């Protein structure tokens, strides 16, 4: 199964930045970016 997240966030220098990589294992509660 799969979960797709779609969200609105500020872009640009102060904007959203991903903190994980493709293929990375994640656990519930792990930060996905900042």
């Amino acid at each position: 199964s799969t979960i797709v997240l779609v969200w609105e966030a500020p872009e640009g220098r102060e904007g959203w930045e991903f903190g994980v990589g493709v293929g990375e294992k994640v656990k519930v509660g792990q930060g996905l970016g900042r």
Partner: protein
Amino acid sequence: ASEAWRRTPTKWYPLPWFVGAMLLVLVQWRRTVRKEAEVHVDGDGHEVVRLRGPWQVHILGALPLRNLSRVWGYLNSLELPLWFRPYGYKIYASLFGCDLSEIEPSDLHAYPSMGAFFYRALKPGARPIDASAPLVSPADGTVLHFGKVEGARVEQVKGLTYSLDALLGLEDQSGKRTRVRRAEADLGKRKEIEVVDDEEFANVNGIEYSLNQLIGGAGSTPSTPVTPSAPSHPTTQRSSSASTSATESTDEEFPTDPKAYSTPSSRDRHPSPQKHGERIDASVVEPDRSIQETLSHDVSVAKEMGVSPTLQRTRSTYGATVRPGNALYFMVVYLAPGDYHRFHSPTAWVVEKRRHFMGELFSVSPYVAKRLENLFVLNERVALLGRWRHGFFSMIPVGATNVGSIKINFDQQLRTNLRHPRRSRPPPGTYEEATYSAASPILNGQPLSAGEEMGGFCLG
């Protein structure tokens, strides 16, 4: 010309082989261009989704996936003999890499069936929530893909994209869906062959809805009374370094005195049973939960969202327009068979409505995701739509053949992996919508804080 036509002698000679080959290449090229340019669109030029991909995909499409999923679910719901359970589950755990040390209850005899073991819970605190991150992972799994939504197209994997509108449910201005049987791009010129503006009927749960009722007209707000929601069961707790990520706020902005809000009369707190064709309110009613309790939970979520609850009456846009300086981002997390299959709230947000798409149940493994175009738009899924501190927010659990059932803790109406005979299968893109506005007297939706358990995937 007729003289020349009659008198000119016809001379036959064999074509050199390469001219014939060139002709074949030309014909093939033209067919390919035509095939690629062929776009199935509905009345507004939005893409109508259909099965496309290499031959493996069409074999998958021909299988009775839904029936296979239901048989799989039935087999996994069979009660296992007590003595066998520890052995069976340990074999499964070693095959799929489950960590048995963190499950709750830890005694394997306590799981009567494979389905119950699949839907196991975790020990409290097993997943500390990173309070410094605005967004956390909703589940255990592997990051399949992520990025920015460019031009309302979401990238499934490198090179394959699908439309965000098709993923979340598209509503044109009138809220009615028009369907074009088929429109063919003729080398760049788009020629609508036939536009059918029909009120197709979709037979959902044996009750007939007109399509328009089913998807609800755009802009119509649910006129549903308010009731408190069931407490979600947070199996995870915020890590000790929790610093409220919400902007510091003064308490008068977040009054917890019920008089500060127009609280519902007792009648409103119990929405009338769903009449045929009305907009569904799927909030879970918790009669013995006091308004005070509900308010304090909602206010704490509003604080985490960094917004004042009293201003929350406005409805969020559903990805149609984002605020200036903002953009839409997406991420796809794939849950492997051995992963913990309950999912949690990725942030503090309010779920205002959900759209259940009774789609297919293709496998969503990375192998298929790389080959089956529009996979996430074809599969059965539940699109939870709402808002968070920066605007639009949505979370879409997508089912698959072995995990065809999706559970949402705060939704009493949702039934997934329904049996509907092929002939009455609703066309791709049809969905059943429900709102949660009765879940919170002040936030007009189901409030969730980061890490709260929301539901999960079940076998079959």
